[in-house]
């Protein structure tokens, strides 16, 4: 399959641009795989520190409240669904439907970030409170940065959708962005299990 694609790319007179979008998606998937290793590194560091700690939680901290974060988790995870719906609309040519679901997903991401900010402000420990504090803020903060990047990427794709006929033949950028969004969601689920459920 790879062979024939590169063949087509080379043989087509203007094959350069058309093939390029295809490469972008390949490149982006490779990048995502690589990116996931950073999270894997953080996760394993967290596990090692937690398992070997004599006193894991900082003094005065009983544990993390998990009910409200669970609520925000549901919001974030369901935004993966709305992104998928948006993509379906796009593939059927319903541009407004795409925009609506896309915007909804962005909003849900923003709600998640808001919830995160509220939680950060209410916690009784800081980033320097032992290795637990460091891990908590590093993991949630690094993930939060990804959510933010996801929202910004989606905004970019939304803005592109207003260019006439831009998305007529589907858009690699949208596919890449939604992949990224699913990735961010999966990471969060793992993170939630590690931080809140595992105690």
């Amino acid at each position, binding site marked *: 399959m790879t062979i024939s694609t590169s063949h087509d790319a080379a043989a087509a007179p203007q094959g350069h641009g058309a093939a390029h979008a295809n490469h972008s998606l390949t*490149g982006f998937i490779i990048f995502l795989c*690589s990116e996931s290793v950073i999270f894997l590194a953080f996760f394993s560091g967290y596990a090692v520190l937690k398992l070997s700690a004599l006193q894991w939680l900082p003094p005065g901290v009983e544990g993390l409240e998990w009910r409200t974060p669970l609520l925000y988790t549901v919001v974030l995870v369901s935004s993966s669904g709305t992104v998928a719906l948006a993509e379906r609309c796009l593939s059927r040519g319903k541009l407004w439907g795409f925009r609506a679901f896309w915007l909804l997903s962005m909003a849900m991401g923003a709600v998640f970030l808001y919830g995160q900010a509220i939680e950060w402000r209410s916690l009784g420990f800081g980033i320097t409170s032992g*290795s637990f504090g460091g891990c908590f803020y590093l993991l949630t903060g690094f993930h939060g940065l990804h959510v933010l990047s996801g929202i910004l990427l989606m905004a970019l794709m939304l803005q592109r959708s207003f260019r006439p006929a831009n998305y007529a033949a589907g858009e690699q950028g949208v596919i890449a962005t939604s992949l990224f969004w699913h990735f961010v969601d999966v990471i969060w689920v793992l993170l939630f299990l590690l931080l809140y459920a595992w105690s």
Partner: protein
Amino acid sequence: MTSSAGVDARILRAPHPVPGAPDNWKRFFTFNTDAKVIGIQYIATALFFLLVGGLLAMIMRGELITPAADLVDRTVYNGLYTMHGTIMLFLFIFPVLNGLNNLLIPCMIGAPDMAFPKLNAAAFWLVPVFGVILMASFLVPGGPASSGWWSYPPVSLQNPLGHLINGEALWILAVALSGISSIMGAVNFVTTILRMRAPGMTLSRMPIFCWTAFSAQTIQLIGLPALTGGAVMLLFDLVVGTSFYRPEGGGDPVLYQHFFWFYSHPAVYVIILPVFGVFSELFPVYARKPLFGYPFVAGASLVIVGLSLIVWVHHMFPSGVPQWMRDAFMVTTMLIAVPTGIKVFAWLATLWGGKLRLNTAMLFALGGLFNFVFAGVTGIMLATVPVDIHVNNTYFVVGHFHYVIYGAATMGVYAAIYHWFPKFTGHMYYEGLGKLHFLLTFIGTNLNFFPMHPLGLMGMPRRVSSYDPEFAFWNVIASLGAFLLGVSIIPFLLNLVSSWVRGAKAPANPWNAIGLEWLLPSPPPAENFEEHVPTVISGPYGYGTGRPLVEHQAEIERALQQA
């Protein structure tokens, strides 16, 4: 389809501005997106930093020529050895290999350029940026980072002056930028190899250099993020005051060692795999025989990738890891000898019964193989736990990895530079100067790095600024070797510059080699084959078989000769 008319049109068209054309120097200082320009930018930058790193090494060897710490202060020595290692790895060997990747991969697979030319240029321009940051760390109060290129905490977290901008912070920043640059490069190389090969070039017909580059870049993609994660935590500990690695806050300094070596051992394979590729390309050309057992050599690269990711604890045998871990990681480390052995034996079988031509490129390849085998057998010794416990962190290890990184990898890089010099500059190099360079390098390398083995066995720790008098003899010899290596660079640079400026004009295929890059004019036009990519009809290295590599090969060669 590639018609003969198409071939003629390509050859006869007025050549694009090419690297090396006298009116064209400016393009090397711009954000150029041509992989061939970027390749030369990488190599030139890397050679500049080779000089810087080499100068630091010579000051170190000057200090070590006597037992006492008398030439420079201990703090300065510690900064020097830290920066020497950092520069040689992140600013010399990685960039120079990325330069070869840029020059060779698109030409070898018949692609017009890399998959993402702008990303490619951005990845390159990060190199001078973090190079400047690293150099600037010599000027900040407190001096450069001086905790070794491993930067193990808690030593690396000690900040005597307490400034926020300190050598260690700049070091972490520079290494992080280097990581980003390498990831950008790796995404590009892997995508290019997977998606932009010429028609007919199946994976099983791809040149070994591309196989090894692909393997090496895969390691970058898997390993580098782990180091980045570990380095982010180190930066937080240093700047914000978290305690990931600080024992007093419940952190674990050994955790950093795991992160560091999870990447930094495979990094050695990132360095040596492309050099294996260079050996596999050069031996068939200069022995006039096909590469022996192509599928095994290609497959061995992938096996090395897999194994390289599960050996890192062998750097930590004395770190207090449990016995079962020592045993398990010793076994995985030993296993790497098997695919590596397959490659070495394949090269020997390629050479056996050949018709060898010992020009400079071939001499460097043979010398590199010699040094690599030596490094390989000392590597097996280091894999076995009890011996490693004795020589770990001694000069034995320093000798071992300098045989790998200078003796094998850098000599392989020299071989590659000489071999492909005519292709990408359009000029032949001077054999006499080249052979002088080889002779000085080969003698210098062995004089410099062999004495480190007896020193390590006697128990001289690495990274020392002073040592007991019983180590003096071998240290003097090593220092003389280091100064000889310094001298060996002179004929090299002289050769590069003078050959490029006034060397004889190079034909398209001066070595009578087989490969897509040799079916391009020297130097190749900006977009290589453009839309006239030949269709590959057989595997590489068909020396002596009379098998054409591509359709219409005779016509292409005739057109190249006429042009």
